[in-house]
């Protein structure tokens, strides 16, 4: 018998620590915050211009609920129709199988250069490093994605991958990587340089990979939305098009596209529609068209009654743009492919221990739920995940103790009144350094309010007795 090896715990994502590093640069934090708030305001204007906005949200949510309740049937229908259309359909249980399928297709065609448009799924699967390790050049062609790829980073936002990078930094990066003049930081000229640089890649690529925004069960086709035109420029030039999609991207029929597309771009960036909404139903003559349907934890998530609604997500990013925590901590602080509120309710389902802190990266202000175009109760799910994290014993020791004590106090009215009185006195008398000691994590960046002279109960009792004397006057 061999001795058991000592356990090596996997790293736990510490959002608070990462956020602390982000906010250390106050000017940059404010800039990041303002950039995203501007997008949120554009979203508001676009949403308010549509009289039936709330009806659309309601309808979108119901269509998704219906689809999820018959997802297996719609997936089978999609496969059947797509196959009849000449599309080759593949199924991947997990990230590894997805990557193998993609690589096998590329290997069969001897592909050396792959151009990719935005696909959060391939980020989730770690496709780029997998393919690169096998000698395939992978070029992300969305401008934001190309910026983070050249910088050796991942996207910090699902719609605006380089929202955390300043134009001067992009200028320096482009100077080093694609030869723009030193000091050039004009967005127009940098974009033009990227256009020229990427056009060469489009023209020399052997295959193209895209994500999928919506797949239509009834017609066996799928829709890809971009503003730049990069997805189309890639796939219409190459002999192989691979489209990777999570199984939750299915919608029943083409009539539903109108509902989701009216919501998607308005929620995402405040545009009425993306510039290109491309519908693929059959391969180009002489081209192979592949769709890879990926589960990777989604079917398991469907089984979690409290959380399955998160699978309604259409990846617009509205909850991310509005989140006061995201805006002031940056996408990378979440340590998950999908950051922000929606990421914080999806990733604990993948690994509760690793992502235990994410449901706490929220003030539960509820703004994410208010803007969600498919009406996912994001704050409700964040709260529920917190309960599960605590039940599973992942809450920190000091938090557990504080909660246990607080529970005792709140349960006992006399103890509560006594503790309140004591607290109000102590806060007045104790020196600052005793109140804001090292253990007071909450007080590190916050001031406690001025303690009131009396509690509400005391105030009420005092005024109530006055009222009692005047009894009868009100009648």
């Amino acid at each position, binding site marked *: 018998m061999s001795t058991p090896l000592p356990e090596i715990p996997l790293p736990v994502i510490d959002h608070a620590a990462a956020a602390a590093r982000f906010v250390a640069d106050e000017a940059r934090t404010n800039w990041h915050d303002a*950039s995203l708030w501007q997008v949120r305001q554009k979203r508001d204007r676009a949403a308010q211009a*549509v009289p*039936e906005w709330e009806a659309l949200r309601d*309808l979108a949510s*119901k*269509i998704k*609920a*219906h689809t*999820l*309740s018959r997802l*297996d049937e719609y*997936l*089978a229908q999609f496969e059947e129709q797509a196959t009849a259309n000449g599309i080759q359909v593949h*199924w991947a249980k997990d990230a590894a199988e997805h990557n193998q399928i993609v690589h096998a297709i590329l290997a069969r065609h001897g592909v050396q250069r792959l151009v990719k448009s935005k696909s959060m799924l391939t980020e989730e699967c770690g496709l780029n490093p997998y393919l690169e390790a096998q000698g395939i050049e992978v070029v992300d*062609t*969305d*401008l*934001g994605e190309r*910026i983070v790829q050249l910088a050796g980073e991942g996207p910090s936002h699902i719609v*605006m991958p380089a*929202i955390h990078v300043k134009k001067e930094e992009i200028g320096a990066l482009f100077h080093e990587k694609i030869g723009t003049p030193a000091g050039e930081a004009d*967005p*127009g000229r940098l*974009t033009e340089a990227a256009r020229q640089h990427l*056009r060469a890649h489009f023209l020399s690529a052997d295959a193209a990979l895209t994500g999928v925004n919506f797949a*239509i069960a009834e*017609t*066996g*086709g799928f829709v890809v939305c971009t*503003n*730049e*035109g990069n997805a*189309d*420029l890639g796939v*219409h*030039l190459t002999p192989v098009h691979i489209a990777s999609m999570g199984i939750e991207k299915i919608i*029943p029929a*083409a*009539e539903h596209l*109108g*509902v989701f*597309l*009216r919501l998607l771009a308005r929620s995402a960036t405040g*545009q*009425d*529609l993306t*510039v*290109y*909404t*491309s*519908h*693929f*139903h*059959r391969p*180009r003559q002489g081209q192979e068209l592949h769709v890879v*349907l990926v*589960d990777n934890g989604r*079917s398991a998530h*469907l089984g979690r009654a409290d959380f*399955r609604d998160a699978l309604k997500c259409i990846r617009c990013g509205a909850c991310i743009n509005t989140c006061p925590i995201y805006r002031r901590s940056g996408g990378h602080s979440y340590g998950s492919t999908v950051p922000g509120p929606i990421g914080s309710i999806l990733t604990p389902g993948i690994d509760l221990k690793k992502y235990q802190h994410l449901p706490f990266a929220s003030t539960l202000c509820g703004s994410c739920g208010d803007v969600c175009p498919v009406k996912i109760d994001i704050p409700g799910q964040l709260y529920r995940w917190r309960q599960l994290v605590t039940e599973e014993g992942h809450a920190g020791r000091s938090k557990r103790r504080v909660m246990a004590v607080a529970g005792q106090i709140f349960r006992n009215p006399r103890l509560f009144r006594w503790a309140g009185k004591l607290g109000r006195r102590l806060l007045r008398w104790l020196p600052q350094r005793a109140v804001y000691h090292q253990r007071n994590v909450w007080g590190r960046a916050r001031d406690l309010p001025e303690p009131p002279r009396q509690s509400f109960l005391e105030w009420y009792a005092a005024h109530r007795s006055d009222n009692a004397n005047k009894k009868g006057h009100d009648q």
Partner: protein
Amino acid sequence: MSSRDAILQAVRQNRPDPVPRPPTPLFASPDEGLTTAFVEAQKRAGGTVVSTTADAIATLLDARFPDARVIASTAGDIVAGSMDLHAVADPHELADLDLLVCRGVVGVAENGAIWIPKAHLGHRAALFIAQHLAIVLDANALVWNLHDAYARIDVAEDSFGVFVAGPSKTADIEQSLVIGAHGPRSLTVFLLTE
């Protein structure tokens, strides 16, 4: 068990109780103002709409793109073009395309989108690789919203189809809007009013 069967089985086991499929209404459309709304939406998206007649388009294009050398047209009755898209075997040959002129099928007033199926493109790539794009659209082909548009088109009729709403653009550098990302640097819509 194959991955396909394993996934479908897991989904079947975990799916919630049946939820009925809601009907999709067309939502109320205003009777008037379609053209105005369409022009405004195109403007928001960075496009330009010119209300004109078919016989004026060639001259308007000459004036707008005096330097365009390689011009492809799938609306041969309106603009001749300098090359024949049907003679192109490999879409890479379109790399130096200056201008594509094609016809739209349906225009959407609320967002400026125009439906263009593959049949109107010759090559799918032409719409994206051209430096500039001009679309000819009948003013009678305007509808109010996307629901109405989808009711009028069959998305699966052609192998490929696209809603185009404006010129290619990006805001990936500090949210600064830049027109001309990877696709056409401009979109001109000729709205036929006669």
